[in-house]
């Protein structure tokens, strides 16, 4: 039963590089501790070549001008750990979260799905790289051998079954104590015991796993006890255990803390792009998409209140809800940019947190003979741009409300996917008659109406096109409703034909400028209004 291990060496450094990939070619060191007692805990190869080592103080490291120093970030590390688990879960449902930098996968049965073991290993390596992690991948017949190989060998390692001892032999004995020696994960006693064991083996002249594997078991047991035997089993690659699978929660969040606050949208967009790419890569590795993006910006001096956003403890939150699940970082970035343009945070930003709500990707295939429809991603961008132009509530689809109130409709989001209606009960008749349309004036035009025997005979309005002698009238038609609520309405409607004197001489009207209008008398508020023209 093959197992794979994904190990990210120098994890704090890898997490920092994942958050800031542009630091890759530079010398980088990670600092930890409270100022001014910060010390270096991790360095990359370039920094090591410049003489920077772990344990140096910040003041010492700062003497090297080319060195980039970054504080250790728990947020970055947790995001990198989540990405590691996403990578593992994209290959196997049975994943053990062995450590923050190590994930174990059960590859049983995966060969028929994903190819041979070397192919799977290379695919895992590539997927981890795509998620911004430079990992070691090892495949062995038992989990512990895979872990040791991943920690000991760089790149991709595949150990054939039965050759574990031979392959693991050259590895130094330190690989057995990597976890124990890391200060932040183990208690002080365990660390001391591990250091003592390592010292003992070193004193015996045992420097690699081959030497430890060759020791007689009884003698080793007499001197080091059960721990010694366990270590020997590990060194032989013969230890056997079952995985403890974890179900990684579907949380897709990325954060970045900024040393210097951001005040412009352009650098913010640059950082958002990086976060979005990471989130999209993670979602993609789990074959998921997202329908909701939540951007939380922590602000430096929060003073300006923006009522449209949810504000909680100096945070500026914007939520981007999409009509359909999508997975396109560029589209998301543009939508967030447009949204932030319309609703700027109003203060410098010190921390960015981006979360995506996972959703199953849409599985729709357009028919060959169906009429074309707008692409959802393009359409969403277009709608966001138009909303920026005309206003958010001024673009969308119409929805009629179940009321007789005039203007009884509301705007809702326009989606280019309409659920198919059953063909048996069509809502729309096949060939409806040509219905006279009304062109509305919004708001209705206030008019002065001359009445004769209670009927309008002349109309004066602020719009020149809609005034003149009333040639013909039909009505009144009385409408009222919602009398049980504050927004009660009651009105008399007239359909009138107006002889428009203003347009009488217009060449377009040919001397016959008659327009049909809907005239409304508001019975509650008083006043006459021209509501629209029949056109």
């Amino acid at each position, binding site marked *: 039963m093959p197992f794979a291990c994904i190990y990210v060496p120098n994890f704090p450094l890898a997490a920092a590089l994942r958050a800031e990939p542009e630091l890759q070619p530079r010398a980088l060191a990670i600092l930890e501790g409270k100022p001014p007692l910060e010390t270096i805990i991790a360095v990359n190869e370039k920094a090591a070549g410049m003489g920077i080592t772990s344990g140096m103080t910040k003041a010492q490291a700062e003497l090297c001008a080319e060195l980039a120093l970054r504080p250790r970030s728990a947020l970055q590390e947790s995001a990198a750990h989540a990405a590691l688990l996403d990578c593992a879960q994209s290959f196997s449902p049975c994943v053990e979260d062995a450590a923050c930098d190590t994930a174990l996968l059960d590859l049983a049965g995966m060969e028929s799905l994903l190819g041979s073991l070397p192919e799977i290993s290379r695919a895992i390596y590539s997927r981890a790289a795509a998620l911004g992690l430079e990992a070691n991948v090892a495949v062995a017949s038992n989990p512990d051998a895979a872990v040791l190989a991943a920690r000991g060998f760089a790149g991709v390692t595949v150990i054939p079954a039965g050759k574990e001892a031979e392959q693991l032999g050259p590895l130094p004995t330190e690989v057995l104590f990597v976890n124990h020696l890391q200060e932040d994960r183990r208690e002080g006693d365990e660390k001391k015991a591990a250091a003592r064991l390592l010292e003992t083996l070193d004193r015996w002249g045992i420097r690699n796993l081959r030497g430890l594997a060759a020791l007689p078991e009884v003698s080793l047991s007499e001197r080091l006890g059960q721990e010694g035997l366990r270590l020997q089993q590990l060194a032989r690659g013969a230890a056997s255990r079952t995985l403890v699978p974890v179900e990684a929660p579907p949380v897709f969040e990325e954060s970045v803390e900024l040393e210097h606050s951001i005040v412009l949208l352009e650098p913010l967009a640059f950082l958002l792009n990086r976060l979005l790419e990471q989130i999209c890569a993670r979602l993609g590795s789990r074959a998921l998409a997202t329908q909701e993006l939540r951007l939380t910006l922590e602000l430096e001096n929060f003073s300006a209140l923006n009522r449209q956003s949810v504000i909680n403890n100096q945070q500026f939150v914007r939520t981007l809800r999409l009509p359909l699940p999508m997975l396109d970082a560029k589209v998301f970035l543009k939508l967030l940019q447009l949204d932030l343009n319309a609703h700027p945070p109003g203060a410098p930003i010190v921390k960015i947190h981006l979360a995506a709500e996972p959703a199953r990707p849409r599985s729709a295939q357009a028919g060959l003979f169906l009429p074309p429809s707008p692409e959802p991603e393009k359409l969403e961008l277009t709608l966001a741009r*138009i909303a920026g132009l005309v206003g958010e509530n001024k673009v969308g689809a119409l929805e009629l409300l179940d009321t007789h109130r005039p203007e009884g409709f509301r705007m809702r989001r326009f989606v280019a996917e309409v659920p198919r209606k059953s063909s048996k009960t069509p809502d729309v008749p096949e060939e409806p008659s040509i219905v006279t349309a009304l062109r509305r004036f919004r708001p209705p035009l206030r008019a002065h109406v001359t009445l004769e025997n209670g009927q309008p005979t002349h109309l004066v309005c602020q719009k020149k096109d809609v005034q003149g002698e009333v040639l013909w009238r039909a009505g009144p038609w009385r409408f009222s409703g919602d009398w049980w609520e504050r927004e009660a309405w009651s009105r008399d409607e007239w359909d009138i034909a107006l002889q428009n004197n203003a347009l009488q001489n217009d060449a377009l009207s040919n001397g016959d400028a008659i327009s049909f209008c809907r005239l409304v008398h508001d019975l509650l508020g008083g006043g006459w209004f021209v509501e629209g023209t029949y056109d």
Partner: protein
Amino acid sequence: MSSAVVSTSAALGRPFVFDADADAEVRSLPVANRRDQAEAQESPIARILQSTIKNQQSKIPPARVTPASQLEIRPAPEMVSSGVPAIDALTGGLPRGCLTELCGPASSGRTTLLLAALAAATRRGEFCAVVDASDALDPQSAAAAGVDLERLLWVRCGEDLSRKKNSPRRPPSTPLRAGSGTEENGNQKEGGPISRSSLAREACPELVEWVGIFAQATFDDRTNSRQSEHRLEQVLRATDLLLESGGFGLIALDLGDLQPQAARHIPLTTWFRFRRAVEYTPTILLTVEQRPIAGSCSSLLLQLGPADRSAADPENTTPAHARLLTGLNINADLIRSRLDRKPARSVVFATKTAWAG
């Protein structure tokens, strides 16, 4: 001269097929020059050159010149139903990938035709967009016309904020009651000094209302051009974005309430751009306006107007409450069509109101 021309073209590797231009050039030369040429042609060097050129020409195949009769003809656009059978009979339908203009004054049936076209497009399963310059679309009319509202994108242009700020108008049947919300009513407070306007209102309420309406009209005239420009800018940019997005079966620009003077501010290049944007796409670009504004960019131009005014017969002595507006008779003139060369002709069709049954 002729030989010189031939040699230059031969040096460039382009053998002549038609020498008509060169001959004409030679003919136009002065006589002295022709004599020089004749002498040059007779010289042995010229003869050698000519023979060399002829040899070279015989080796190079002449460039193929496609005769005009074999030029690729742009395929005729697909015509789809406009939703009005009479208009379909007149024009053959609305052309896809082209710009169609519907012109006419108020109550000429432009919006009715627009809604019919939208209904026909949504019945075909297409998505449509209306860029509404005056926010004039009536949802109830659209639904009654058979438009599938789920497939209709409505872009409502216009300034909302400025209206709210500047206008003391109040739509009918709002929660505001008389004396509680309008600016005029708010001026006179209890126990405060009586203003001149309140005295005038008491003396002649009708006069005050008239003055208010005319003052508002004057204000509107002043701000009208600015608002029109703003709306036009919104309309054009929104249309650009929609055309760029693609996938719509019909995109309609409703400029029906825009004054022709304001609509003429749209540069002709914009219409050329729109025409190019819809070309070779299945989108129908439809504009509704008072007068034609797109010039030669439109493939189809329909002028709409009332066929008769029998519906508004002032001699009708029936009481008003016994009358009913049952519909309009519309006359459609085909002013221009790039798609056929038939002479301009017209058609009349009748519309009926939603309550006419």
